[in-house]
Structures are given as C-alpha cells and as structure tokens.
C-alpha cells in the first residue's frame, strides 16, 4: 500500500510542476513500477490542476484522493487497494480528451472521476464511448444528455433551478425575474428552460430580463445598475444567477457597493458555493441565496464526520466542503458498491449493476442511481451568512429525481432515457417510439 501510494503522490507533484508530456511520462513510468509490485485497482482523476478551472477542480481532485484513502483504510475494493492516477488537463478542453484517452488506454483505469464544465464533458464523451469506460461527472449541469458511459451525480435543472424559482415565487413573492449568466452552454440552456417554465407559470415576457456576460467579466457597474433599474418597476424582483467562476466575486462586490440588499433584490445562484465565498467578505451579502443539493451547514451526523475527516486529511482547519464534493462522495461510493455487487471492475457489468444502487448522501438520506444515469437528491435553498456559510431556509420534503430531458423545452419534452434492457437508450422518443431523439 505504501509502495502504491508513494509513486502516485510523486506523480501528482510532478504533473503539477511539469505539465503535459513530461508529467505523463513520469506518471506512466512510476505507476508501471507500482503495478509490478502489487496489484491495485486504478481510479482515474481528470480534474484541471492549472488554468482557469483549477480554482474549482483542484478541490475535487483532493476529494477523490481523500475518498480513496478512506476506502483503502477499510481494505480497498474486492480485496485490492485502490490507486489514484491523477492527470492535469489544464483547463484546456481538447486536452481533456487526450488525457481521458491516456487514462483509459494507457493507464487502464477502471473508472474516471472528472470534468467540471460541460464543454470538457462533451470533449471526453467520444473517448469514453469508443473505449467503453465509465465517467462520473459531479457538477450541476444543463441536462439534455444521457450517455451510457457517463453517470451524472450533479444536479439536473429540475434538481436545482426550478425548485429555487419556486421558492422565490412562493416565499418572497417575486414577480419579475432577471436571468443573468455567463455566456456558454450551461447558463444558456438553463435560462431557456427557466424562461419556458416562468412563462408557463404566467409570467409576462416583459417581466423577464436575460443578460449574458463573458467569462471572467469584472466590470459589473452598468449591469448591476440595469438590474436596479429593472427592479424599480414596482414589482418584487429577483436575480437568478448562472454566473460562473471568477466573475462572481466582482459581481457580488458590485451588488454590495451599489447597496442592493437581499431584502430588496435577492440573488439566487447556482454556481456559488462555500468554496467561491471563501474569497469574499460576505457581510454585505447576507440573505442572498444559493440552491444546491448539499451545504456544509447541513445538520447530519454523516456530514459532521465527513467534514471532520476532510479537514484532517487536508490538514487544514479552514477547508470548506461543497456540493460537487458531495456528488463525488455519492458517486465514488456508488461505484464501490456496484463493483462489489458485480464482483469485477469490468465496464459492462459495473454499468449494469450501478443502476439501482443506493448509498447514503451527506444530508442524512440516501441517493439512488436511476435508469437514466442521474441520481435522486434533496434540493436545499440556503441563504448566505456573515461567516461564508449558508443557512438552509428550505428543503424539498422528498428526493427529486434528476430529469435529463427537460419537460419545458420543445425538442426534449418527449424524450426519456432508460439504460436498462430492453430499452437501453438515452434518448427514446415516446411519441415516435424510436430511440435516437
């Protein structure tokens, strides 16, 4: 075990320093020697450790390493130790595909945990299909996809966006909506779904304002002023934010600067968690909201022990936990359970036995893998507190099943996904009765 762990750590460090070819070379050489000494099950970790996405993805890499560590303490899987193979796709979308191929073809990993942005997921899809391997994807996304080789442990729009809008309409009496997002596929699709949903609920077109900004947008003055203007039409207004990544910090700073309080115009965000708030003074943001399936502040014994273990593993008392980490926690345990049920790490039997697997989630309940390769989760709405944590103000009474094909979009409302036999199809059209959209 010691022998297996040390090379992978060395490999991790070298891939941090020398990216690309050198890292890959060192990695394959080192893990090759490890293989010769003890047979292990390899687990691929495909998260950016450099570039723009490193801010979010590095934590997920650590999470998987932590989970593997814990599992090995319990004796590993099928009597073998787990060994992490970490690569760095460097926030470069085509590199994701290359690194995925390297993991599956050369490293022969049994499963890969990875990706953050939808574009990186789309980039690796063909690789996983071609080489028939398994990817666990831990981030909330726009839906409209269900692949045989991918298991989606993050939220689909109906597990995050729609309950959040419902909460604002019911609890805050919001009648006017600003849908603000970063300009790429996740916000655009989510906003399309939300727009259709709001209109179906009777919101007039002039009461919806849609605004897109580029990645890393930092000058929010005039957009925030616009939101303020839009909000002064005498109706209660809220902002639904799919603003992603770095742009959030200056956005919230500007809200605070222009004196927009949560009591006046609340902002509900789908990409802002404990990790993102770590770089902010949250004093002026108290009361703004976020919708997730997990918050660090969830009051459950399983969560407390997870946080404690995580802080001990990272040797940092200030490390926070967040929703995508929980998604990896669920996904990893599901994979372990499915492998144990199948008695092998071969792709096909594991994919079959993953459906229906149920494992504890961190909010004190159980999450199950559904036939559409999405999972069941509770939806929580939290308000930002002065200490950078969230206070949960609403929780769905039961679990919500991830809906991959939105019921509110024309192209997808007739589609369903079921990867069990005999259907075995990710986009079955119930109207035409054909598989293929």
């Amino acid at each position, binding site marked *: 075990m010691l022998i297996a762990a040390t090379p992978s750590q060395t490999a991790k460090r070298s891939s941090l320093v020398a990216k690309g070819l050198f890292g890959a070379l060192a990695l394959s050489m080192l893990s090759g020697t490890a293989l010769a000494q003890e047979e292990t099950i390899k687990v691929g970790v495909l998260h950016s450790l450099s570039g723009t996405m490193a801010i979010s993805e590095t934590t997920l890499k650590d999470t998987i390493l932590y989970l593997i560590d814990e599992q090995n303490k319990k004796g590993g899987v099928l009597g073998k130790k787990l060994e992490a193979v970490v690569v760095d796709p460097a926030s470069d979308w085509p590199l994701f595909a290359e690194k995925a191929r390297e993991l599956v073809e050369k490293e022969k990993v049994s499963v890969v945990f990875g990706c953050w942005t939808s574009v990186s997921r789309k980039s690796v899809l063909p690789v996983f299909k071609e080489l028939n391997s398994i990817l666990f994807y831990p981030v909330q996304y726009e839906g409209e996809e269900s692949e045989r080789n991918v298991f989606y442990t993050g939220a689909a729009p109906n597990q995050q966006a729609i309950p959040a809008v419902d909460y604002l309409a019911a609890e805050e009496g919001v009648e006017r909506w600003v849908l603000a997002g970063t300009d790429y596929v996740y916000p655009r699709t989510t906003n399309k779904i939300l727009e259709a949903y709001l209109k179906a609920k009777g919101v007039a077109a002039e009461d919806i304002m849609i605004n897109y900004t580029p990645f890393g947008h930092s000058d929010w003055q*005039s957009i925030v002023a616009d939101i303020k203007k839009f909000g002064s039409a005498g109706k209660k207004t809220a902002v639904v934010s799919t603003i992603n990544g770095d742009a959030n910090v200056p956005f919230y700073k500007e809200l605070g600067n222009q004196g927009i309080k949560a009591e006046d115009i609340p902002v509900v965000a789908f990409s802002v968690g404990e990790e*993102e708030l770590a770089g902010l003074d949250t004093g002026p943001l108290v009361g703004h909201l976020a919708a997730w399936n997990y918050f660090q502040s969830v009051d459950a014994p399983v969560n407390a022990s997870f946080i404690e273990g995580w802080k001990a593993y990272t040797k940092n008392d200030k490390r926070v936990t967040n929703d995508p980490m929980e998604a990896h926690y669920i996904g990893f345990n599901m994979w372990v359970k499915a492998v144990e049920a199948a008695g092998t790490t071969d792709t096909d039997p594991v994919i079959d036995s993953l459906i229906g697997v149920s494992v504890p989630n961190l909010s004190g309940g159980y999450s199950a893998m559904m036939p559409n390769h999405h999972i069941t989760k509770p939806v929580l709405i939290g308000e930002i507190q002065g200490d950078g944590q969230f206070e949960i103000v609403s929780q769905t009474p039961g679990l919500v099943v991830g809906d991959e094909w939105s019921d509110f979009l024309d192209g997808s409302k007739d589609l369903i996904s079921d990867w069990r036999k005999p259907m075995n199809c990710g986009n079955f059209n119930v109207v035409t009765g054909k598989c293929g959209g």
Partner: protein
Amino acid sequence: MRFLSILIAALWLALSTAVSPAAAAVADEDLKRLVDALGVGGFSEAEAAINALVATGDDRVSAILDRFGEGDLYTRKADKSVFIAEKAGSDFKLLDPVTGAEAGVVSKGEIEKIKVNNRIRRAIAAAVGSLTLRSPDAAIRRSAAEAVMKSKDAAAIPALDAAIEAETDPAIKQIMVAARAAAVLESDLPEADKIAAVEMIGGLGTRDAMSMLAAYTAVEGPVGEAAASAARTIESSLLVWDAAQNVWYGLSLGSVLLLAAIGLAITFGVMGVINMAHGEMVMIGAYTTFAVQEIIRTSAPGLFDYSLLIALPLAFIVAGGIGILIERSVIRWLYGRPLETLLATWGVSLVLQQTVRSIFGAQNKEVGNPSWMSGSFTIGELSITWSRLWIIVFAMVVFAGLLAVLKRTYFGLQTRAVTQNRQMASAMGIRTPWVDAFTFGLGSGIAGIAGVALSQIDNVSPNLGQGYIIDSFMVVVFGGVGNLWGTFVGAMTLGVANKFLEPYAGAVLGKILLLVFIILFIQKRPRGLFALKGRAIEA
C-alpha cells in the same frame, strides 16, 4: 390553536396599552410568551409573532427583534422556550430575551437556532422602524423612516404623523413624509389624499420614487392617472442622470484599463517588448496586497486601513524586482526578435501563474476593502462608490507620476534617449543594458501597484492577470505605441464607449463591437491615435 391564542394575547395587550398609554411596559411573562412564539412553526408564523410583539408597543421589543435579526435567538429544545444564546467556548450561554437574566449554559445540541430569512429580515426592519421613529438618535430615526417607507404599511400612518410632528431634522422629516405618502397609497383613505401622496412622491424625482409609483400606474381612476403622469415625468428626468451614470462608469472602467495598461505602455510602447507576462505582474501586485493584509490581520489589526498604502511600495518593489529579473534572464537575449519574445514571455507568464498557485493555492484570496474604500454616496441620482472614485484618483496620480518620471528626471531622459536611438545613446555614454533593465522594472513595478488597486474590485486568483492582458494591449495599440498620452486617451475612450454600448448591445456583443471598431481603426491609422513621428519609429 396556539397561533390563535398568541393573536388574542397580542390583541389584549394592544388594547390594554391603548387604554392606558403610560403603561407601555408589558408584564415580563406576557412578553416572554410572545417571544416564545417566534420559535414555533415556519416563517409565516414567525412573521405573525413579530407583528404580535410590535402590537404591544413595549420598549424592549425593538432590542429583542434586533437580536432576532442578527440570528442570536435560539429555542431550547426541552421546553420550546426562546433565549438569546451567546457563544461561550464550545457551549452557549443563554440569556432571557426580556429581562436579560442569565439562564444557564447549554451545549450546542440542546438548543436550535431560529431561522431568519429575507422575509423575516424585512418584517423585522419594518417592525423596528415603526417602533424607533421617535428615537433620540437621528441615525436610528432615519433608518427607521426608510424601513417604514419600504414596508408601505398603512397601519404606520398614525405613528408617522406623530413622528413628523416631532421631527426637527428637515432631511429626516422629508423621508418620513415620503414614507407617509407611500403608506397612504396602500391605505383606504379618500382619493384626494392619495393624489396628494402621488404628487408628493412624484416631487422627489428619484428612482425609488418611481419604483413606488410604478405599482399604482395600472390602477383605474384618477390615482392611477396621476401616478402614471408623475412616473413619466420622473422617467424623463432620470434619462439625463442615466447618461451621466454611464459616463461615470465609463471613466471608472477607463481608469482601470489605464492602470492595467500603463505599465505595458512602457514595456511594449516605449521599449517595444511584447510582454505577455505583464498581467502576471498585476497579479503579483495583488498577491502582495493580500500578503500585507494577512500580516496586518495577524499582528497589527489597527493598521488595516493603511494596508493599501503599505502594500503600494512593496508591490512596486516585488513586481519591479521580478520584472528586472525577467529582463536580465530572458528578454535581453531576445531584443529585436518579437516572435521569440512573445513566446518566451508567455511561457514566463504560465510559470508565474503556476508558481503563485503552488504557493497560495488555486482558491481566490480575500483582500478586504479598507473602511475609506467601502460603500457609496449619491449625488442626485448618481451613485458613486468610494472604491471606484479612489481608483480613478489613483490612476490619475500614477499617470501624472509616470509622466513626470519620464519627462523630468535624468533616468527618464536616458530612457527616452535609448528608445529613440540606441546607438547614439550608447555612444554618449549611457549604459543601455541597465537602462533597459530599469525601464522594464519600472513598467513591471507600475503593473504591480495597479495590482494593489485592482485587488479592491476584482478577485485575487492566479488568473487575475489573464483577464487584463488583452485589454491592455488593445489600449496601448489603440492609443498609439510609444505615447503615454495615447494610452490615457485610449483607455478613457474605450472605457466610455464600452459602457455606452453595454446597455444596448449586452456585455458580450459590446466587447465584440469594440474589437471590430479597433480593427477598423487600426486599418485606417496603423499607428494608433497618437502616432509618433520622425525617425525614431523607423529604428
């Protein structure tokens, strides 16, 4: 059932206070019973309980509600009794919310926090507002009046009337009158009163006033008509303010661009080095600010307001030093080979980014705003944030300082000599390699102090510099290579143009339009706005 009994109790208390106005105080037990109701049920029940508390008119209510708003109220699980809980080590000390008496120390598991959301916070603000309209403290009266204005509660009219009568400060009195007008519109007073209220609000001419009126423009009858016409009047006057606001935002964005680009104007503009690592110098400046603040936080918290002033020279030295190091180790071998310089400095930028990531971690770092840079003030309808104002001032000072260094000092003279004619300068005894190194260091150092300013408005992460590098090149090329004034005018023009485009075209399209404009402009004037003339440019 329980809810009903609370209401009855509240009514009874309200009645008893009405009968004998001197006895504003309620018996402790009765008040405690009402406070206990805060912890029962969900948000709507808590809101009802707040209203019941306010109905007592007791002096202690506003203090209790304040603590509630701050999230200090907890329910003791054993008997559902509500207490103020204060952290004492890992346990909590319980205080009776009414009497303030200590009620023992309990562990975290024995109590449960009463949740507060926006709705409750609004209810508390309105309730406390209506209770503190007569407070002796002017600041409290002002925020009370503002809270009541937001709540538009018709029941507050008598309290407002009394407060207006007693108010001596004209500014606060005006807010109270506006609050009363807002409440009148929600009440069932006769139409004439409402029209007077519409006129009163319309006279304010502010965006808040328009927002208040907007809700009534659809109402049938004379009130609706009056509201609609008043809203139209305000709207047309706001148009002017909007334009002024856009100019201000444009200048503010322009000064940020100027700060980011001005160091580049030296390294690229004056020296002709295509420095892709320029953004990383800005980033290093921001991280220096972070490090300074961390040290101040742990060792001398009293100095926090001066953290930026301390960080400025340090950022200049750190970034300038790294700049000189880069020039000596990489760039000096590559003068006159722009393509290689571009690739080499790009490599340097990646190395710097990853180094910072390894040292500080990939997460954003929190750089606090000193108190003199927080918040905003308004001039008419123009809201100006202090941080932006200071950044504009700072950009101007840096620009003027740099101009002075280049035009008025011996070092500046040498720099200009070397950039205009290297051989001649060398022949005159100027040690050109050292001038190159220090000029590059100066450009990098300026980028570093730009980083101090940008840490106040952007997030401090290893990617900070990347966001500015393209914009910086755009400004320098547009303004004219080799001319500081060109950089100044270029930055301001692009800033203002961007802010006027944004509301119509959106942020993404706005940026594209601007790039297209610059491409066309460069076609027409390849040397930018302020082209250098003469033989210097041929060298």
